[in-house]
């Protein structure tokens, strides 16, 4: 199944919600924030999709307003790989956790919380992963400022 078929399949399952392909990535389906936990559970359990292998999840920061949370998943049964995106508001980024569906998502969400500041309600153990526990700030954001980060002369 390609991304377009995924979008149609999800559209028939969740009527009233709009599933479109992402403008930047032709293999990515944008999922509205309201249906996030049920939608991923459906993708994992439904016969036609059966996404049992969670690749990764990460964030792409697009200032000033937008932050894209990208998930990539694969089905070992049907052998299709598709990315899914949830578009967040950069200043108030909050997504329900899906770590109960795939164990692999656990550390990915901790890393995103650590480096981007996205909050995942429902995650059992949300603490910093890469940075020390008492670090302030979220380093991978585009507006991160720290005295050690200097601009190169060129």
């Amino acid at each position: 199944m390609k991304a377009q078929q995924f979008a149609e399949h999800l559209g028939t399952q969740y009527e009233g919600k709009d599933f479109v392909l992402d403008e930047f990535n032709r293999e990515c389906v944008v999922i509205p924030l309201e249906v996030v936990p049920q939608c991923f559970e459906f993708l994992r359990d439904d016969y036609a999709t059966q996404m049992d292998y969670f690749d990764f999840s990460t964030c792409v920061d697009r200032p000033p307003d937008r932050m894209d949370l990208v998930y990539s998943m694969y089905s070992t049964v049907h052998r299709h790989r598709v990315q899914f995106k949830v578009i967040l508001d950069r200043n108030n980024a909050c997504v329900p956790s899906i770590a109960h569906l795939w164990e692999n998502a656990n550390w990915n969400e901790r890393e995103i919380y650590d480096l981007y500041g996205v909050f995942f309600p429902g995650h059992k153990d949300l603490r910093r992963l890469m940075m020390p526990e008492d670090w302030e700030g979220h380093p991978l954001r585009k507006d991160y400022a720290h005295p050690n980060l200097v601009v190169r002369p060129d």
Partner: protein
Amino acid sequence: MGPQHPSTHGVLRLVLKMDGERVVDCDPVVGYLHRSIEKMAENRTFTQVIPVTDRLDYCTSMTSNYVYVLAVEKLADLTPPPRAEYIRVIMTELNRIASHLLWYGTFCLEIGATTPFLYSFRDREKVLDLFESACGARLLYNYIRIGGVSQDINQAFLDRMIEFLDYWEPIIPEYEQLLDENPIFYNRTVGVGIVPLEMCRHYGVSGPNVRASGVAEDVRRDDPFAAYSELEFDIPVEKECDVFARYRVRMRELRESARILRQCFEKIPSGPHGLPLNYRFKVPEGETYVHIESPRGDIGCYLASSGGDMPWRCKFRTPSFVHIQLFKKLLEGVLIPDIMAICASFDIVLPETDR
């Protein structure tokens, strides 16, 4: 079990809650080797990021280079010439041999056997000599570039590669002879660290670790890249899911790598070794994900470009990051010596995890 420990394959910290000699709970703490490679990648041009990806996994530097370069080529819609594809296969397979030999040496060292370490490093030196003749570096190559490779290889390199294989293939049984008939090794590894298939799927385990649990999954077969679709090789699979099975899979993979290298020697075409590209070339706007088979598992790169000459976001999905999450579940109820055997059998490297 602190970050500075000879058996943790790098700076991994395991906070273990013990009851006598048994582990009750385990919490892996990573981040001691975090070098913000992803942030650095956002501030360098596309070609300048390649030496940074070298350091992503320094035991298999060719693979780390390659996954990033493949992502850039997919976004920019570039096709490298056929000779470059074969050179890339040769380098990736030689790197696989070097990495598995390093794994074999350190795995045995952690279980307590010192001799196999010397055997495998003696032969790994010969592979590093080959790399040095091709690109000038022993460990951090910066060789696979966008559109091809940085320098061509000549017939002398290929002859020396075959000479190495002729010398080395009869030695692989020597590595196995040191361990296979050893009752101490059997007691330490058979039945230890069992990862059943549902657990593999739930955690996203890939590479030799999932092949030791009974599934023939290999990115070189499922999603071919470089020249792998034209080459013949088998995928070794074992069914027992324990430490011994993971060891057997990697030993058999060494033989398969030698077979692939011999086919490349026969089939490599002549031609240019790369595309002529501008130093500061621009990649069109877009995002993409590619993945290849590294000796540790399935390494992937998610690249987002905003149309400029620097990446907008470069995320590396590394197998070690995924496999360390397994430790929390796997190390429950094991004895202290088993911790080393289990941790070592997954072939974790910390630079990949922490980036």
